[in-house]
């Protein structure tokens, strides 16, 4: 059994149920999966549950191994997380923070860790920020640093919560291209995205969530239909087919 398997996951915040009995189709290496759905559908919560940052009932396993029972250091080598909100206020420089992301949970050697961290920054095109303090970066720059912290351990699974929310157009394209490249290297990439047009363009699979449960999943062209968008989001939408099986989504207004 290879891949990420989420089955019958339930989660409450206090008495309020967020996810009930959610089961996803198995997520395979090499695929970019986009979690979509209206606000409060439970997308971020599901991501946190997979990352073992929120307690849940049910089973989440990677290659057949229960993630909840895995030692934290081993899990950190397998899963990289890019959170939605980025803590500010640290005077650590970018490079230091990425080295810390590598060395805090492993016995990586000093010089190797330094070089590895620098290589990741360069891969993401933010090498020039290496010696900038975190608290002096723009939101978009911090978001890129956050991605660097998530991928520096070479994780098999990459979980991203609205990774493009603070990025300009060029950086959005760069980041999404990078996600495709990371997936092509055999990783399982799962991202929460609000922009359905973007999701349609970059995802192999869209998982549409609604009220804490799975609504539908599949290739963008099968999931993103006008009927379905009206049902889940309450919007009037047009979906047009482009070349190579791609689609674009245009929203005209509320139902």
């Amino acid at each position, binding site marked *: 059994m290879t891949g990420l398997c989420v089955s019958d996951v339930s989660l409450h915040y206090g008495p309020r149920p967020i996810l009930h009995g959610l089961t996803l189709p198995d997520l395979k290496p090499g695929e970019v999966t986009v979690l979509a759905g209206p606000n409060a559908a439970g997308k971020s919560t599901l991501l946190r549950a997979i*990352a*073992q940052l929120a307690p849940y009932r049910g089973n989440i396993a990677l290659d057949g191994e229960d993630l909840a029972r895995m030692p934290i250091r081993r899990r950190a080598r397998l899963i*990289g997380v890019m*959170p939605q909100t980025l*803590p500010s206020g640290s005077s*650590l420089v970018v490079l230091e923070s990425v080295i810390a992301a590598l060395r805090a949970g492993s016995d990586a050697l000093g010089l190797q860790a*330094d070089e590895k961290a620098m*290589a990741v920054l360069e891969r993401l*095109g933010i*090498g020039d920020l290496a010696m900038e303090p975190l608290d002096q970066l723009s939101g978009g720059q911090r978001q890129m640093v956050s991605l660097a912290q998530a991928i520096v351990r070479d994780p098999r699974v990459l979980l991203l919560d609205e990774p493009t929310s603070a990025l300009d157009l060029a950086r959005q394209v760069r980041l999404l291209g990078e996600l495709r490249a990371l997936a092509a290297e055999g990783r399982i990439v799962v991202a929460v995205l609000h922009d359905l047009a973007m999701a349609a363009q970059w995802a192999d699979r869209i998982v549409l969530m609604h009220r804490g449960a799975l609504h539908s999943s599949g290739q963008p062209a099968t999931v993103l239909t006008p009927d379905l968008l009206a049902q889940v989001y309450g919007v009037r939408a047009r979906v047009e087919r482009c070349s190579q099986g791609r689609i674009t989504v245009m929203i005209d207004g509320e139902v």
Partner: protein
Amino acid sequence: MVDRQPAIGGILLDRYHRQNRRRAVLVAVMAALAALGIVLDLVTGPAGLPLSETLRALSGAEVSRATEVIVWQVRLPVAAMALLVGAALALSGAEMQTVLENPLAEPFTLGVSASAALGAAVAIVLGLTLPFLPVQWSISANAFLFALGALTLLQLLGRLRGGGPEVLILFGIALNFSAAAFLSVLQFVASADALQQLVFWTMGSLSAANWQGVVALALVLAACVPFSLRAAWQLTALRMGEDQARSFGVDVDALRRWTLLRVSLLAATAVSMVGVIGFVGLAGPHIARMLVGEDHRFFLPASVLTGALVMSLASTLSKMVVPGVLLPVGLVTSLIGLPVFFWLIMRGRTRR
């Protein structure tokens, strides 16, 4: 995206390594300054010993009996105690600030000092002490137990209530006020003699320093520091936030638990020896952070040394401000600490 020159990574990596070397040098300089501070502390005092005489006594050369006693039994324990107390309080402040994710956390603000004072008051005013202990240790022992008890209670309450560092800080503040309230009650019922002794204790004084105390604190410090340094990367990672640190592979709950245990031992021991000393635990880490940044491999040793140096200087100052009078050292640190505190607020630096 613009293609960048491949060399820039190498250049910046070099800059990073240079910066680390500079920080290591800074830490070494601070160690030298702390050593200088202890010498300065040793050669000042109401006895008016000349420098050469003090140094001769230290080196073990032939000096008068009086000089030998002053240097070895009075000044050296006081100077060593100042150094160790400063180091212990600053280290506990530094680690508390990181694990509680709050720049104002330190033994003083979390009620450790107030609880220790309450313990001392119970011994001084009510005469309630541990049996089978020599009488000169009874006050320290009580203060230690109360301080450690306060931090244990804090952790238990935090565990029961669940939730993160904010809850611990709120409980700490509540504990601070509770201890202060009980202390007031004891002050109210205290005899004039006991009250005077208590007030003196709450001002923090090095004058009662002795070799047993110095050795005890040195042992606790020596036992804690290696573990602190071993956790340096994990603590650095925690600066990126709890969830991030978790995803980096840091068991945040365990880190917090063990760090608070170390910090409790350090703070309780230090405070029980010398009474209430404010602001070293707060100012030491802040100065260290400004000097070497937040990479805890440098930040923790720098905090230790800054605290040691500040306490050494405070001890020296306490002997010099009013000639012939030994001011309680807690007064001096508070007077140095307050402006630092105000400056921190004025700088408007907010974390998170």
